[in-house]
């Protein structure tokens, strides 16, 4: 079954300078029990996507078209506010970049972990035990004593693990993790993603993992969705995306990663140009003004070309051979 099926989603914000088309024809699935990575630069619509899923779009934002189907039953774009509240937390939970934003600094960790179980019928003792179990699961040493401590008494890595424990406490079907490892050093980043992988297996949930860090995506995710200027330009399995990128943006993005330059260089590769103004989207391909393989046809909207089943690129030339073979 598919945990989250996003189909042809369009979101517009009304601004003083006219409507801003923040998400355009976004389609992808988060299958059950899989970790799906979302890659894209700031402004590509990742936050809008999260807010659309959680029903938290700002007042000037509207879903014009499309659907977000959760567990095959709930249509999130038209869900009532009260049903949405029932889903947020127990069924769909989130972890953000800054764990201090998720933890209340003046309430002990234990109390926060018990409080968030307010929907559960367990007794106080059982809830406490559940909190201890979760802290042990995220490898917080001396979990029982940790319950009495306050967020500032933990290190950055531990705070993020506590935030993950709280997000997974109610065993949600979907965890949305928005750059959860960005503030951590490489050793803690790796431990945190390994932990996330283990917990995902154990709880059997799906994860939508958002990151700029291509290395982390490659290591953690099963599938990858590449977003650019509010569109999904390519999606596929992690291997398909990293080893055989078919959209020119994906290919260039991977080439730009300094981690791929094994020779030390002072001049890092870039993608020249800027994202077009989303208030005046070009009628054709959104990447055409920066694309190294642009053709006359690109002034018309490109198709979602199927490379193989499940590997899709929104590009006219996606099925033509590339001159560099994809890997830099």
């Amino acid at each position, binding site marked *: 079954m598919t945990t989250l099926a996003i189909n042809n989603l369009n979101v517009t914000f009304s601004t003083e300078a006219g409507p801003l088309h923040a998400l355009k024809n976004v389609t992808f699935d988060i299958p059950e029990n899989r970790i799906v990575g979302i890659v894209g630069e700031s402004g590509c619509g990742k936050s809008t996507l999260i807010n659309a899923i959680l029903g938290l779009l700002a007042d000037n934002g509207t879903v014009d078209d499309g659907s977000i189907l959760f567990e095959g039953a709930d249509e999130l774009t038209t869900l009532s506010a009260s049903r949405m509240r029932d889903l947020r937390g127990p069924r769909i939970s989130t972890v953000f970049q800054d764990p201090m934003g998720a933890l209340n600094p003046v309430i002990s960790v234990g109390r926060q972990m018990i409080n968030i179980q307010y929907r559960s019928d367990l007794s106080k003792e059982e809830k406490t035990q559940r909190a201890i179990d979760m802290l042990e699961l995220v490898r917080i040493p001396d979990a029982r004593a940790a319950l009495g401590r306050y967020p500032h008494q933990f290190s950055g890595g531990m705070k993020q693990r506590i935030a993950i424990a709280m997000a997974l406490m109610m065993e949600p079907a979907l965890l949305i993790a928005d750059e959860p490892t960005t503030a*951590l050093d490489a050793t803690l*980043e790796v431990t945190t993603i390994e932990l996330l992988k283990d917990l995902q297996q154990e709880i059997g949930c799906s994860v939508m993992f958002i990151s700029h860090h291509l290395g982390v995506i490659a*290591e953690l995710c099963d599938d990858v969705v590449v977003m650019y200027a509010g569109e999904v330009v390519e999606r596929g399995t992690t291997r398909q995306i990293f080893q055989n990128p078919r959209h020119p943006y994906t290919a260039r993005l991977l080439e730009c990663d300094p981690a791929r330059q094994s020779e030390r260089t002072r001049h890092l590769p870039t993608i020249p140009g800027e994202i077009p103004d989303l208030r005046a989207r070009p009628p054709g391909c959104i990447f055409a003004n920066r694309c190294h393989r642009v053709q006359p046809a690109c002034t018309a909207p490109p198709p979602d070309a199927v490379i193989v089943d499940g590997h899709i690129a929104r590009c006219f030339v996606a099925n033509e051979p590339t001159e560099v073979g994809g890997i830099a």
Partner: protein
Amino acid sequence: MSTDPILKVEDVQVSFPTGGLGRRSSILGVAGVSFEVHPGETFALVGESGSGKTTLARAVNGLQPISEGAITFEGQRIDTLDRRSMKPVRRRMSMMFQDPVGSLSPRMTVGDLVTEPFRIHGVEGRNLREEAARLLTLVGLPVDFVGRFPHQLSGGQARRVGVARAIALDPALIIADEPTAGLDVSVQGEVLNLLNDLRERLGLAMMIITHNLHVVHHVADRTAVMYLGRFMEAGNTEDVFGAPQHPYSAALLSANPEPDPDKVHDRITLPAEVPSLLARPRGCEFHTRCPWVRDNCRSEPPVRHHENGRTVACHFPLEPGARPPVAETSPA
């Protein structure tokens, strides 16, 4: 390193008071750090959030008083200067702060933002409109951006405006705190290339703070690895990356995720947690997590080894390619 250093930091400590009534004590955010930055050189500080990188940068810039040590900039002792005498120093040493959009006032236009340094420092006799055009061209932005507001900029453009502000008064040193955080890899490359071009053209020295090791590898001449407010290891970037001698740098470098789903990692996993600054471990402060720990690491602070411009704070510096001595167990 025949030239005189532009910045010399000697045994600097920064302490923060903690505790409330009757229980006053202090913690060391920076616990005795020494380094030099030479003209035209890029010096990188790496370490996790909370390791003291930003505190150290703020101390260098005079935004954070230091409790011990000395900071010398262009031959002048600057840690003892008061606010007023520090002001001219800041013309020569500019700082780029972390959040690209947040560090720009939302109500000022780009033109006002890039010329604000001239007004703050009372630089007269300059045509500000021309200066704005010059600076925007220098950082690769169209001159007609002068009328835009920060919310009309992309992350990369906002960063360029930040760079323009930083170079406005012809500084000798730029301190850039996470100059690429939150930018995607292509925009990150643009910003780093820009900084590097300016460094070459204007002969700037740079101090870059980041936790992106891939970035450090490409842009930095020298790198210092920070942990709990101290340098664990410092040296030429290629030496440190090629053969780390401190167990923490070795672990950091081995952990670095790479964009290849089939990569087989040979990682050094670190057990236990980062200790609290309130309870620094005895002896070597890394011993609680060190896979190579031996008895005297637990009781005696390591002596710094200096060799060929390289510093390692370890009793037993690693040989190239060293692996942890015992079979690793998964972290408890």
